């Protein structure tokens, strides 16, 4: 039987049991993961996963279930339990599913793994590490991922997305004599393996830096200065900002500082943030949002002005705000016209922050971060790698005090981000 027909029958069974609205998602994932452990090829892991998620609304009550045993008996038992469970829910008029849309199928990326190329790419990386950076200990994985994702609902939504991509991750630490560095890591998704892994993004530079970081010093004293945030650091801060102040979580819990600020300038005018889920440069694109709409390219922040609240149906209905682009999937921050080297040379006193260890900023945006793999800058020059230094900033201030954005951008396959130089950060040492 055609799988789509089979899934449509599951929706029909739920409707027959009293469900008024049904969403269904079915996915399969196959992974071939090649692992370097203790600097050597060590593990080849083949994974087959599948899942079925059902969400139903009845009398404006909602309940969900997810299972991965998809035989008829298991699915029937799940339906029975789901329809029992929904009776205990309470009603909210905000629960809804996406409206009818044209069916669509998307296919992106390689559909077949090149195992020989994976082994040769990973072996080449290991050989280069051992040759060029013998003091560095490391693990790494290179994975071929192939996914099929079907989303249907009782309003007639029927989307199928087939994706294939490679994913590389490595974690490394330097040790010279009895002195050692902090660990650092990098990872990204790839469309192909044509470029050596060491030469992609900033892998070689990050590993070169780690070999300098076995000798670190504290900053000379507490000070207020500039911080240059590496793309992967400022990306994490940006995700927190969006989630806490513009997205579902911030609006639904009333913790957003900007609950009614559409079309208002709330951040630095040098900042433009795009939701670019289908950017051709990305190895891991998104075609359908989790609330069953097609993804859309649109600016979230344009020259500091809030253009959209990236919210799903429930939040939209609950808050009365329009659902426009839906939850953001892939962020692209437009780079500036300043080279990283110029950015550094323009800093009187500050820090080049290549990694930061921090938790969720508190509700008003304050956060303290321990700076890792980072460098003290004085009079436009990198002076030394630092130890035991904390940075205190406010999340909203970070994106309101941008001095410049770098020309260089980092593409991790899901986001594209530049370096950002931010003014007035507080640094404290032991």
């Amino acid at each position: 039987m055609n799988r789509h027909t089979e899934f449509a029958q599951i929706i029909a069974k739920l409707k027959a049991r009293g469900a008024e609205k049904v969403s269904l998602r079915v996915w399969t994932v196959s992974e071939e993961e090649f692992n370097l452990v203790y600097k050597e090829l060590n593990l080849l892991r083949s994974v087959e996963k599948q899942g079925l998620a059902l969400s139903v609304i009845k009398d404006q009550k909602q309940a969900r279930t997810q299972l991965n045993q998809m035989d008829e008996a298991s699915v029937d038992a799940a339906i029975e339990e789901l329809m029992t469970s929904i009776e205990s829910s309470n009603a909210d008029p905000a629960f809804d599913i996406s409206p009818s849309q044209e069916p669509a199928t998307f296919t992106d990326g390689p559909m077949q793994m090149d195992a020989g190329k994976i082994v040769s790419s990973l072996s080449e990386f290991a050989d280069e590490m051992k040759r060029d950076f013998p003091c560095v200990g490391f693990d790494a994985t290179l994975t071929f991922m192939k996914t099929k994702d079907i989303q249907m609902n009782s309003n007639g939504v029927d989307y199928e997305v087939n994706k294939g991509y490679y994913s590389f991750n490595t974690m490394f630490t330097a040790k010279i004599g009895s002195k050692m560095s902090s660990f650092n890591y990098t990872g990204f998704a790839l469309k192909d393996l044509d470029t050596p892994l060491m030469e992609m993004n900033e892998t070689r530079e990050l590993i070169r830096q780690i070999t300098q970081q076995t000798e670190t010093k504290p900053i000379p004293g507490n000070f207020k200065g500039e911080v240059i945030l590496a793309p992967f650091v400022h990306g994490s801060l940006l995700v927190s900002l969006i989630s806490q102040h513009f997205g579902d979580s911030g609006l639904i819990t009333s913790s957003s500082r900007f609950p009614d600020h559409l079309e208002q300038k709330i951040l630095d005018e040098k900042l433009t943030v795009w939701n670019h889920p289908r950017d051709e440069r990305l190895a891991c694109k998104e075609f359908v949002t989790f609330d069953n709409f097609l993804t859309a390219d649109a600016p979230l922040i344009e020259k500091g002005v809030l253009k959209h609240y990236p919210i799903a149906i429930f939040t939209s209905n609950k808050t009365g705000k329009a659902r426009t682009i839906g939850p953001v999937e892939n962020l692209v921050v437009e780079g500036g016209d300043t080279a990283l080297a110029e950015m550094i040379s323009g800093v009187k006193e500050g820090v080049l922050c290549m990694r930061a260890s921090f938790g969720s900023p508190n509700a008003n945006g304050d956060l303290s971060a321990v700076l890792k793999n980072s460098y003290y800058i004085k009079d436009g020059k990198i002076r030394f790698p630092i130890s035991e230094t904390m940075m205190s900033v406010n999340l909203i201030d970070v994106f309101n005090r941008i001095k410049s954005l770098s020309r260089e951008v980092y593409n991790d396959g899901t986001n594209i981000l530049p370096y950002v130089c931010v003014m007035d950060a507080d640094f404290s040492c032991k």
Partner: protein
Amino acid sequence: MKKMQLAKILLPGGAYYELKQQENRSQSLAFLNGTLVSNGKSANGGIMSRTFLNGVWGLASSADMSLPGMEKVMKKALANAELLSAKVNKGKIVLPCNPARGEYLFFTRKQPWTTAAKIEYLKVLDNYVATKYPDLSTRQVAINQDEMEKYILTSDGGEVHSMTPRTILVVVMMATHNGEPLQHYGVFGGFGQFEDNFEDPQDLFADIDKLYKELMDKKEAVFAKGGTFECVLDAKLAGILSHEAIGHTTEADFVINGSIAGEYLDKPIANEIVTLIDIANTWDDKICPVPVFIDDEGTLAEDCVIIKDGYLRRYMHDKESAQILGQSLTGNARGYAYSDEPLIRMRNTMIVPGNDKLKDMIASIEDGYYLINPSNGQADATSEFMFGVSLGYEIKNGVLGKAIKETTISGVAFDLLKTVTMISDEMNWTAAGMCGKKQMIPVGMGGPAIKCKVNMGGKA
């Protein structure tokens, strides 16, 4: 989970291999401002086979929980090992073993509650918060129950069938003060199914009242000063210190990759009053939050005394790390999902309680902080750590002062442990932790309160 007859297809002799059948189940119920926004269940089950051949591993997994399915993944796992072995032949390596057999199924012995009854329980709590504290801008009450059921057979004689549950109830409160949002939360429950942790919602009312008072204290909160201070870390923070800052550096895979702990075996690294243990399953005759009796490699799980009287004494191991370092097995190999390979993971990491009283520890500090709740934590191979602190108070002249705004503390754990001068006589476990290391996995953390020197994040 219907246990498969895996022994039928276990082949004696030859390469070392593991067969695993596993199902992870969860239930999530959450009220947000009176609306049940989450009412869901999930179950993810499948099978896995892992083979060790000439120094490399092959692994294959599938959701197909049948004997033909298992035979298929066994063949695939062997083929994967052969493929890698052809590239990197390390010759025959024999892995150490200390196999054990047992069944550890922690299903509740009480009458199971229906989903409707659990929702009603939450509704009572939500109503209590809404009625008593109408000034809150947002309230959330949620339950997550997780169950991990595993059946594992190894070719060197290990066999374990386990079902390890835990149930966590979270209460979140938010208020607005001078236009700024304030947030606080409490976590309750731990090891066991819902019925083993919760009975009458009124039992939690006093904890909810305390939570609200602490949230109100935050209205007057001041910024902590940046710099190094004498502090009392309450049990939850001492637990996360044990786990993040010390525990990770002493996982043998980190040691092999260059962790600083590799330099310190049998050397003094802490004040002699400090003893730190990764407990396998039982402490003080009580089952710990994440009990492990036999690990995912079929190894007998033993307590790993990492620091004894201030000396670093032992690392945590899986079979491969124990073989490489020539040390004894500890039973720390665990995988999260059916498809995951076992990694070296902590179980229940704790500092052993001392003889001091918390009030005396606070009274002994002239200018410092009493730090109570962690929000998160990370650590490094150097033992440098950072923890978010979501609740803490100033200590001035031995007396608690104002609450402090949320902040971050940091330090180098092996330095910090030398500054520990007092350890309280209380023991508290935190059971809600998830540790990320390629895979996420539940962990327990515990301890008494400790007095030590800490770097505070704050205004310069």
